[in-house]
């Protein structure tokens, strides 16, 4: 086998894996704070891509203004959803809350179809096309930029969790809500914060994903791949999202190249089932001990 080709495929896989990890981060943030699996992350990602499209191509704003606006738009959607739908559902059966987010995903997808119709579109190019070479291996510039951005954002999140007050509050809430309350942490505030930051992250990831592959109302399927990532990595672990994302990205790239495109999803889902059988709470997830 040609080693250079293999290296290129692997690098491309790492690039898309970084995007998966970034999206997975949105799942992890929300799950950590509120114990909700938000299946609408994929649709919020799609919305981020479309908002960027609307601001840059529709209103003619420059890219440096459109990106923050799209990310802020995602955050606003997150705040709204948390306040209006998730807050009243707190304490309900987790499956019910999960289904609420499934419904939300459907609503967002329909809304995007209604506003921008179903045609796939390309985002205005803002990254340039000159390829990047690592050694001799060719990497598409967009994927390289995506990788760097995702890496920086994830590193930033790891630092924030470690050192920022809000990050520590989020970790405290995740480990014990009642204790966090009694320490004076504004737990509902933490919930809002987690949803806003997570949805903003997803919207940002949507811009990157859209820039690489174009946008369409069905691109929320990307969220399913990211869901596989968080299950393998562990639902409440940022590190798990990173490792799982890179792993899934590389495995998808290998499967897509060496077995054929239709094997992509089936490989990742088989990996998911295998991972669940061996480690039901993911590679880095917290093992919950059940008592009678």
């Amino acid at each position, binding site marked *: 086998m040609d080693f250079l080709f293999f290296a290129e495929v692997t690098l491309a896989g790492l690039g898309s894996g970084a995007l998966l990890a970034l999206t997975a981060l949105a799942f992890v943030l929300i799950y950590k704070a509120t114990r909700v699996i938000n299946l609408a992350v994929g649709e919020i990602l799609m919305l981020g891509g479309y908002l960027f499209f609307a601001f840059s191509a529709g209103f003619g704003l420059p890219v440096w203004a459109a990106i923050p606006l799209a990310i802020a738009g995602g955050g606003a959607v997150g705040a709204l959803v948390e306040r209006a739908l998730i807050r009243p559902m707190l304490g309900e059966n987790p499956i019910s809350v999960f289904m609420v987010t499934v419904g939300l995903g459907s609503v967002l997808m329909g809304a995007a*179809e209604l506003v921008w119709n179903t045609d796939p579109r390309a985002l205005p190019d803002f990254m340039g096309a000159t390829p990047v070479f690592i050694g001799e291996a060719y990497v598409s510039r967009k994927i390289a930029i995506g990788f760097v951005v995702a890496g920086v954002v994830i590193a930033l999140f790891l630092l924030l969790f470690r050192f920022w007050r809000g990050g520590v509050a989020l970790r405290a809430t995740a480990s014990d809500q009642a204790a966090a309350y009694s320490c004076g942490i504004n737990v509902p505030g933490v919930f809002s914060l987690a949803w806003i930051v997570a949805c903003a992250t997803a919207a940002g990831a949507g811009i990157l994903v859209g820039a690489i592959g174009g946008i369409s109302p069905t691109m929320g399927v990307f969220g399913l791949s990211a*869901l596989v990532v968080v299950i393998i990595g562990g639902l409440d672990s940022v590190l798990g999202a990173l490792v799982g994302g890179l792993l899934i990205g590389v495995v998808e790239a290998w499967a897509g190249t060496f077995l054929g495109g239709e094997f992509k999803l089936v490989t990742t889902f*088989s990996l998911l089932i295998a991972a669940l059988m061996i480690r039901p709470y993911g590679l880095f997830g917290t093992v919950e001990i059940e008592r009678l």
Partner: protein
Amino acid sequence: MRIATAKETYIADEGLLTTRTQRAWMIVLALVLVLAPFVLNAYWLYLACLVAINVASATGLNILTGYTGLVSLGQAAFMGVGAYAVAFLDGHLGTPFLVNILAAGLVAALVGVLVGVPSLRVKGLYLAIATIAASFILHFVFTNWVSVTGGMSGVNVAPARLLGMELASPFALYFVIVPITALMVLGAANLFRTRIGRAFIAIRDRDISAEVLGIPLLQYKLMSFALSSFYAGVAGGMWAYFFRVVTPESFPFATSIFFLAAVIVGGLGTILGPILGAAFMTLVPELLKYVVEWLGPVFPNAGAALSPVRTIVFGALIIVFLVFEPQGLAEIVRRIRRFFHLWPFKT
């Protein structure tokens, strides 16, 4: 007000229909179901058959999700297994209609047991995601096992034949599909009066306690998966005879969400729930079509908006029911019935 319903024996207490009013309504329902095909036009008969098929599948999912507490997002894939089983048997072996339907259920049940194996180690949302994975893997099999499934182009199914008659129109199929569904709903209603059904409920309420009570968890969880996929398989088999072509796109992941949504909207853990939920969720998109037609003169491009509006309404229904009526339509019915039971008094 309901009076004079004191029960003197355990058998009377366990009856499915305990009051005379209930029996009367059930007779009315049976008459309506029998007479409906002679009144309705072809389009509404088509919808009635579709509702019946969806009710069968949703009832199966309710056994698993509503009564055993195992959330599954693979019901559509199990239906697909049943549909392909029917297509294969019908095309290759030419076995009779009822045998095919039964075999479809059994094959789906077998696949369901396989999918259910992780359920002992993982539960809750993790299990839901494992079933998502299983449904994508099954979808892959449908697409790529070309010798059996015909790949992307799918397989055609010959019209069902029963007692020498060809069942090709919705009118003829109605008389097969609706009784099978009724039988399956009756079976589900009876299941929860038996030891097995009660074990399922115990597992749902607290699985560790159920194990302490002497219910072997793996065995019963797998049994629940098998029963639920049996229902899905039979429903899928009827689906195959109804639409007469089965492709991998017939049972997308979205259909699994549809069934879970139907069970939730109808009411988890009730017999009435999936019936109401499946009917409601199947008919609402059709009603939307009428609304769009009615709005046609006002908004000229309302027709183009039909598909996205259906998607939005579908999602919104799930959200609205979960937030405002978490017990579903069955609870609304129960409230109405309670009003009449207690009538002169306030509920």
